[in-house]
């Protein structure tokens, strides 16, 4: 027995010796050679090996909820239709009894709704199906479908001299589908701004206004501006493009019946100012863009109060008389009521300078904001009954529709769709993610910079030393599970640290998010899958160009036969399956920066740590003069385009 133990001990000692020898003579050298790090303290075998996306949170099944998205009220006011995108369903509810009458399956994540003039056909945008479906409201069954652009989120119906039209906002392909109703077909697809998200038609049906969520791409130090796109729904031609300077995230738009106005909620953003001040708008504030539909002139008006903010404005409706507008605050859990007559009165008296500066005056809103209607979590889309008497509020993360007497602004009850997902940590985390109450004076939520968990396309100045001195590109949270460490300097080892106390002190300026909510929050973030991209085929097959690009991505030699140094191969740092080895490298941009993953990279422009590259092409055509960010100098334009085509499939 002793002999046996002795043998085992000898074997173990030998194995330990071999391991030690390997470490001394092979592994250390291997790790130094393959990781290209001077210090191996943060390097493990798992940076390169045994990495799988299968076990990541976003690859696991998750519970689905009855979250209301788009709303549409029947012409007689008796029915309300509710898009339940997470369920692939559309629900019909009785507005009097506030009961759900029936549900219909609609594949492809139904999101935006619109009814025709008679209320016989319900048009549904399918956000993941890239199509518009038609439901017969009698049978609540699908009677037609037509492909549109990528990720359609909103639709509006209108009558024109040339027939009935539908205008669809395609959020991911940055364009607008204009469809004829009979026959149901796409007539044209004019381009929008970036991330078109809402559509409204002028009362005479001659113009469609499209609100875009993200700012158009520009260099880091340029004042960001988003767009309101104006098209002719009859011809599908672009009529006008209005810019919202220093503003973005418009998720709703609505015409005012009695005035030549188009109203769109907005987020006034101050990303180029160091995040050191905490008052008077701080990082961002909420506002309302008042567009003159005749001239196209836009005046931005504030919706917040000096010491209380109503973050993440989203849906908007105006009553039939054009006297009041209702604006949902997704982060503040209120619906703001704007008296449009008082607003018009202020505008009539104000001189041009006052109008220009109005949105910065945080004491102005009480002049025209007459009420704040409290809601359950995350009010998004709104709808009014045709007579304007009843307001419906989609409480997205409460799985309910709040029914409000529009005149008295008193809540009448709720249409209950689901249980709110209290037992689902992902759902609870989403509630934390969208809640502005965790920031000083409720100024913003995580979602304010990460709409749908993605990016807002901005670079923010995180430095106190001077304006615009330390711009940092906002990185997507989609697909980040397993890509730790976080931050561009790679200092935060986990999401819990990233979103923890230091983040609260630097950004939120309040107490840290409590531990339980913090864990829910990180669970939610980890559940976010990589952003969907247009050029990734469903079955994974690549086009010839993408195949060539893939060969370039994994190339170890140039086409001329020259060896590409290991540290300058794309796949060394951006190693599959995450396309990141999660280490920091100097790619010639001014320091060591964390290697971002490339899953869904096509949708996350701008690029590099300070957002200096507006497109993937610029990474190599402008910002890689010394081949430090991969050897690219040998590439001709076709090869570069091939590489970019491949990256857009990841």
């Amino acid at each position: 027995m002793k002999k046996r133990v002795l043998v085992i001990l000898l074997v173990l000692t030998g194995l330990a010796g071999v391991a030690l020898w390997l470490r001394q003579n092979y592994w250390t050298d291997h790790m130094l050679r393959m990781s290209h790090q001077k210090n191996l303290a943060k390097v493990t075998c798992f940076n390169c090996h045994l990495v799988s996306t299968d076990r990541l949170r976003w690859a696991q099944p998750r519970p689905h909820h009855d979250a209301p998205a788009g709303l549409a009220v029947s012409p007689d006011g008796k029915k309300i239709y509710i898009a339940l995108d997470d369920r692939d369903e559309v629900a019909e509810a009785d507005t009097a009894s506030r009961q759900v009458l029936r549900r219909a399956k609609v594949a492809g994540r139904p999101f935006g709704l619109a009814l025709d003039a008679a209320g016989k056909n319900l048009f549904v945008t399918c956000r993941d199906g890239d199509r518009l479906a038609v439901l017969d409201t009698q049978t609540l069954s699908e009677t037609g479908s037509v492909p549109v652009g990528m990720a359609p989120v909103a639709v509006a119906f209108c009558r024109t001299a040339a027939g009935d039209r539908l205008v669809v906002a395609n959020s991911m392909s940055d364009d607008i589908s204009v469809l004829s109703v009979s026959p149901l077909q796409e007539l044209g697809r004019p381009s929008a701004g970036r991330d078109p998200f809402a559509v409204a038609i002028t009362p005479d049906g001659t113009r469609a206004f499209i609100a875009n969520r993200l700012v158009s791409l520009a260099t880091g130090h340029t004042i960001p501006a988003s767009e309101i796109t104006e098209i002719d729904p009859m011809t599908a031609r672009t009529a006008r493009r209005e810019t919202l300077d220093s503003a973005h995230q418009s998720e709703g738009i609505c015409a005012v019946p009695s005035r030549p106005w188009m109203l769109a909620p907005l987020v006034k953003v101050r990303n180029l100012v160091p995040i050191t001040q905490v008052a008077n708008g701080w990082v961002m504030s909420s506002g309302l863009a008042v567009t003159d539909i005749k001239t196209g002139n836009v005046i931005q008006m504030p919706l917040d109060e000096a010491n209380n903010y109503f973050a993440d404005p989203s849906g908007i409706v105006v009553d039939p008389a054009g006297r009041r507008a209702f604006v949902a605050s997704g982060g503040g859990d209120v619906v703001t009521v704007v008296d449009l007559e008082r607003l018009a009165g202020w505008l009539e008296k104000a001189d041009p300078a006052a109008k220009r500066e109005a949105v910065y005056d945080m004491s102005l809103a009480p002049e025209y904001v007459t009420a704040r209607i409290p809601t359950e979590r995350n009010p998004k889309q709104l709808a009014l009954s045709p007579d304007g008497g009843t307001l419906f509020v989609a409480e997205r993360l409460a799985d309910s529709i709040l029914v409000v007497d529009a005149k008295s602004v008193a809540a009448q009850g709720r249409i209950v769709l689901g249980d709110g997902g209290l037992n689902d940590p992902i759902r609870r985390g989403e509630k934390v993610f969208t809640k502005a109450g965790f920031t000083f004076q409720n100024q913003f939520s995580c979602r304010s910079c990460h709409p749908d968990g993605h990016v807002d396309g901005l670079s923010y100045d995180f430095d106190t030393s001077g304006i615009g001195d330390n711009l940092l590109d906002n990185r997507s949270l989609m697909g980040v599970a397993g890509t730790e460490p976080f931050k561009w300097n790679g200092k935060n080892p986990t999401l819990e640290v990233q979103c923890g106390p230091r983040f609260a002190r630097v950004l939120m300026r309040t107490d840290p998010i409590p531990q339980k909510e913090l864990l829910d929050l990180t669970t939610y973030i980890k559940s976010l899958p990589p952003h969907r991209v247009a050029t990734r085929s469903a079955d994974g097959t690549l086009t010839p160009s993408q195949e060539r690009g893939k060969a370039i991505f994994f190339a170890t030699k140039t086409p001329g036969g020259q060896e590409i140094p290991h540290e300058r191969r794309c796949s060394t740092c951006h190693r599959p399956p995450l396309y990141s080895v999660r280490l920091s490298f100097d790619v010639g941009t001014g320091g060591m920066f964390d290697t971002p993953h490339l899953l869904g990279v096509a949708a996350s422009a701008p690029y590099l740590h300070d957002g200096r590259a507006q497109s993937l092409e610029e990474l190599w055509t402008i910002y890689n003069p010394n081949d430090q960010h991969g050897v690219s100098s040998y590439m001709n334009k076709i090869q570069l385009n091939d590489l970019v085509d491949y990256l857009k499939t990841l």
Partner: protein
Amino acid sequence: MKTTLNSLTLAAGMVLLFSLAGATGVRAAETATNDLPLPFPLIDRFENFQIKDGLPTHKAHCVLRASDGKLWVGTYNGALVREDGKFRRIGVEDGLSHKMVLCMVEDKRTGDMWIGTMRGLNRYSAGHITTYLQTTSGLPNNVIYGLDIMDDTLWVATAAGLGSLNLKTGEWAIYDQSNTVMHEPWVYAVKGAKDRIFVGVWGGGILEYELSNKIFKEHRDPDRDFHYELVHDAGPVSDITSWIAWEDDILWQGTYFGMSRYDGSRWRTWQEKKSPLISNFVNFIWPHGRVAWVGTDRGISVTDGNTWATYRTNEKGEGIVEIARPGRPVETRTMSTKLPNDFVLGIWVDDQEAWFATSDGLSHAIFAAPPKPTKVADAK
């Protein structure tokens, strides 16, 4: 002797008779020529626009009337839009990637104008400009010589190959010497033609690309000689393609050594001195129906391939039009107005009017009223 005298008298009489008859015949022919219908309208007068009229520079490169009726002009110093009788300039300060505008094409479905410059491609959409550069997008090269739109594809002729941009997906493709039969990289023109596109390559003739089969076919000068046309009507007149245009199933090629016409099976070629073509130096061709308007360094020709009218300045500095009909002498008419400059770089023509971009301004041509048809009563 008498016979001889009689013969001489008869001969002299015959000569006199033939001379008189000949003189009368020329006059008769002229009269007949003036009355003969032409396959294209004649220009009655030119209205010219130069720096003094609001142009920002002498040189206009291209001109087109958009589907909303507005006139667009590409100049050495920005693009111009003519609205309410005035030119509005769109320049670098408005976001244009370069001041020198070389070509333009309208996406008639959306009303967007695509503007090719010496440095980059621009989309002008309802007043907003989006720029595409070779460094920021899949654009093959920043020098844009020609543009065309077919369905959802924008075709871009550049100094380093042909590019295509899918307007729905944003995907770029490049066609050059490395992946096509293209012999030179300098693509000067591209034109959609139903199920195919034609590509004019400077030094490389013409490429024909079948969209469904993705096959490139090459049309080269059969004699491969730049200057001389040793083989007539058998292919492009020269490989130095400066422009191509297509309409009504007819392809027109402009080169600096003559011009060609291709109907899908047969070629015809024209060079100066061998035909009424005023100059071998062809900058631009605008087909309208089966008629081609040809911009050269010495004026404008319009032709259906047989009958020609050429507008130019004569040695006295007068504007003239020379009408050449098959088998008839050239008829020259003096005009009350003339082109601002005979170096013509761009043309736009429809049934009502014509516009010419020249190296010293823009010219608006007003057509003469067509000759009244002979009355039936008169014929009787």
